[in-house]
């Protein structure tokens, strides 16, 4: 398979995601709305950004006579079919070694995209200009024409006391990416047709690069998250996580975050999981409560002088010296990660 074919294949496949996520977002913010209200536009529906947002937008809009936001518009019926068709021919073209087809696909997707944007603008125009003459609040501009409240196509704009913002969401960016990739496929395909002599190694390198991009796209989601004290529940003992000195966290390779109220609970859980599945093990430390620190590098003490949530009185220190210092001034014993992970937890 040629590289250009691979690209056009990828460009088609990523479009499948667009069925499952919103493509665009319109938000309204004002001093009284420190949390903006907004709506997410999908290719087949409009949803609340946060629960009840559309209801609240409509409530605000009825004072100036705007129509309620429709639950369904005719476009929603055929947009999914159009997208399905584009994906289908994209996949079809990816099996054909002909770069001119790729520019055709680019033109199709670009035209459809522009038409979609125009449709969105028309809808916004009607929405902002078609006002109920009996509205409670009517504003006029300087020459005496009734004011209109059209939200921006893309970007931000003040509409009365609201700052209206209209921006693509991840689905929208995927559409742009796909369009760009098809153009890229065309130029690469053109080069490939000319040269005809691409070596295996080159192709391999490209494959590696492609795989790397895909993997890093997936794995960039795997990261620790901040613990919400008083809200998160310990994955082992099911108690609420309160103590900022002893809470711990495991992040698996798949990006699953497990939170624990104490180091002992976290250690007990590690016995249940395959070590190779773990990406991060983190604990709070004595020195910096509520900051998560690499558990492999921490030094541990068991001391009656610091009570831990589940009774083992196990506390982590970032710095071995400060742990030793603590032990010298108080009771307790010192451990490193290897020792502590082997200790009998049922004591």
């Amino acid at each position, binding site marked *: 398979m040629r590289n250009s074919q691979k690209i056009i294949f990828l460009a088609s496949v990523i479009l499948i995601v667009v069925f499952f996520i919103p493509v665009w977002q319109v938000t309204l913010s004002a001093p009284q709305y420190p949390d903006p209200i907004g709506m997410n536009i999908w290719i087949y529906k409009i949803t609340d950004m946060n629960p009840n947002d559309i*209801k*609240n937008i409509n409530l605000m809009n009825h004072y100036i006579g705007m129509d309620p936001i429709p639950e369904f518009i005719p476009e929603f019926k055929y947009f999914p079919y159009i997208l399905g068709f584009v994906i289908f021919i994209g996949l079809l073209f990816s099996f054909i070694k002909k770069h001119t087809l790729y520019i055709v696909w680019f033109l199709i997707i670009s035209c459809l995209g522009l038409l979609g944007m125009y449709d969105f603008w028309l809808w916004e125009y009607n929405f902002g200009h078609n006002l109920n003459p009996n509205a409670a609040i009517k504003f006029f501009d300087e020459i005496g024409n009734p004011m209109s409240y059209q939200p921006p196509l893309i970007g931000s704009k003040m509409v009365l006391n609201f700052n209206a913002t209209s921006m693509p969401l991840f689905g929208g960016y995927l559409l742009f990416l796909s369009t760009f990739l098809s153009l890229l496929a065309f130029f690469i395909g053109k080069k490939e047709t000319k040269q005809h002599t691409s070596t295996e190694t080159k192709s391999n390198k490209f494959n590696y690069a492609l795989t790397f991009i895909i993997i890093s796209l997936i794995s960039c989601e795997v990261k620790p998250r901040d613990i919400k*004290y*008083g*809200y998160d529940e310990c994955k082992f003992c099911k108690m609420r996580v*309160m103590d900022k000195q002893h809470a711990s966290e495991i992040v698996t390779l798949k990006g699953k975050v497990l939170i624990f109220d104490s180091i002992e609970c976290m250690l007990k859980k590690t016995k249940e999981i395959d070590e190779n599945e773990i990406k991060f093990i983190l604990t709070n430390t004595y020195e910096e409560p509520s900051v998560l620190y690499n558990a492999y590098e921490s030094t541990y003490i068991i001391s009656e002088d610091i009570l831990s949530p589940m009774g083992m009185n196990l506390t982590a220190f970032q710095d071995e010296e400060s742990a030793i210092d603590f032990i010298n001034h108080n009771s307790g014993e010192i451990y490193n990660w290897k020792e502590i992970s082997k200790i009998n937890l049922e004591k």
Partner: protein
Amino acid sequence: MKKYNLFGIAILSIIVLGCSEFNKSNDSGLNNSTAEKVFVAPGELDDYYAFLSGGFSGQLSVYGLPSGRLFKVIPVFSQDPEKAYGYNEETKPMLNTSFGFVPWGDAHHPDLSQTNGIIDGRWCFINENNTPRIARIDLTTFETTEIIELPNSAGNHSSPYVTDNTEYVVAGTRFGVPVPQRDISIDKYKGNFKGALSFIKVDQDSGEMNLEFQVMTPGFDYDKAHPGRGKSHGWMFFSTYNSEESNSLLEVNASQNDKDFIAAVNWKKAEEYLKQGKYKTMKTNYVHNKYDEHTQTATSKTMKEVKIIDPAECPGVVYFLPMPKSPHGCDVDPTGEYIVGSGKLSANVTVHSFTKMMDAIENEKFDGEAYGIPILNFEDVLAGVVKQPGLGPLHTEFDDKGNAYTSFFISSEIVKWKLGTWEVLDRKPSYYSPGHVMIPGGNSQKPFGKYLLALNKITKDRYIPTGPELCQSAQLYDISGKKMELLSDFPTIGEPHYAAAAPRELIMPNSKKIYKLEENHHPYAVKNEKDVKVVRDGNVVHVYMTSIRSHFAPDNIEGIKVGDKVYFHVTNLEQDFDTPHGIGIMGAKTSELLIMPGQTETIIWEPKKVGVWPFYCTDFCSALHQEMQGYVRVSPKDSTIKLSWSLDGE
């Protein structure tokens, strides 16, 4: 001799209060940087939620610390026309008791729920002194959701204190009373009057309270209580006075014994006896009121029985620890080792040791008994004495560094001392006469030792005067340093008897913004404007009404007659944060309603006069709030005008 002592204290207190002018000039000239420590800039948030009891107002107030700004008064035991609590049909049952509807209460001690001895921000409990009751406030809605009455109790003062895992909320009786209540001569007090210590079990999921059992102890006055913490978990400690069991002129007759007691109750042991069936079931009468989130309506249920444990027949449940001079405060330190008793007529603060107590019990180091309950030998349980710290010690809280802070009512000051060495480290005056002190988490295993709040009974000249009746106050101290520093004082509602506080992170994330309409199962709720209606059943009329910015539906109602009982069931259809609507109806003898988004509330209106009477939204809800109004036409009793209702002619 005794009388001279009291006389001396009285003179001293006059001198101390008289000296206040002098004291004040020393301390009210605060440093400039002090102001910064309590200043929470516009738009910024306070670090702590503080729940201050409203005392005889019967309510619970919510303040922010360090600013001292008042955010909400939560109605608990008293009617509140602002929020229609105890006026609307939904919450009237909350104020029902075995004596009938009681519109007032005396709220004393808020205490927060705990997990592993650490406050967890789920619920706040508070006691009512006069008609013995315990209430639970849900900290997701900041509303009173449950009230349970306590039988056999009177002056419910040593309550409601929460155990390490909120297993129990305890409630002791301050007044000895005949159990069961009966017609008996008051001088038959001795031996006939009893002190019931109630243990209320708390369901860990719903928070629902259930009176599990009562320990029936001698008729002393059980003044304050504190659960064991950590190592002493499983025990509950009560201070007592009037071990003389006198029934008249207590100020003299109850101050005769050199020592009264701390009653140590082993509730885990009591649970064992309960399992073995070693209890008596007593017929009684008390009510249990619950607010149901789904129907948004409270119900009141009469309970008929209570399990009684007699400590004379169940050895090991109760022990008495001698404590000098009518102890008031009874406080246990975060480790659970020290039990601090403040003999309010003693010049010293006496501290007992839990370890020594267990040892004395094991080796039977007894010094007699009272009504079959062993009295432990004073010297054998004593941990130490804080010598001459001040006059009139009342209550003690703890920080996270092994220090204790005791309030002194008579000498009007807060004294900081060290656990273990019993040395006094610092003292600061308070203005004036503090009762309780409160450190966030200061009665739990994990104090957040940054601030201390002194809850003062007297303000005299501290604020611009408001006639003879003055406010009481709270004073905030910074206790993070070696010496305490007075930061600010602020007035409070009613009497800030006791308080509890928690870091905002524990409560803020769970605070509800709205009630979801789809979860509203109120029997009279209307969720769509199209479904509003008015229904007549004899002379009872039900108006199913909605409110949304900026109108009621319906807003014109005709066909109501003089003598009708009209129920307005109003549903607030809003689903946006901070958009309540209210309703006030001309001629109504109840209060207004104040309805939160997604909520339904009911007001009764009994028109007495023919005419057209307006109603309107009482909460400034929107730009067109003033337009949010309507009319009810009331016709004579024999009128034939049919019921009709409309909004904009439809």
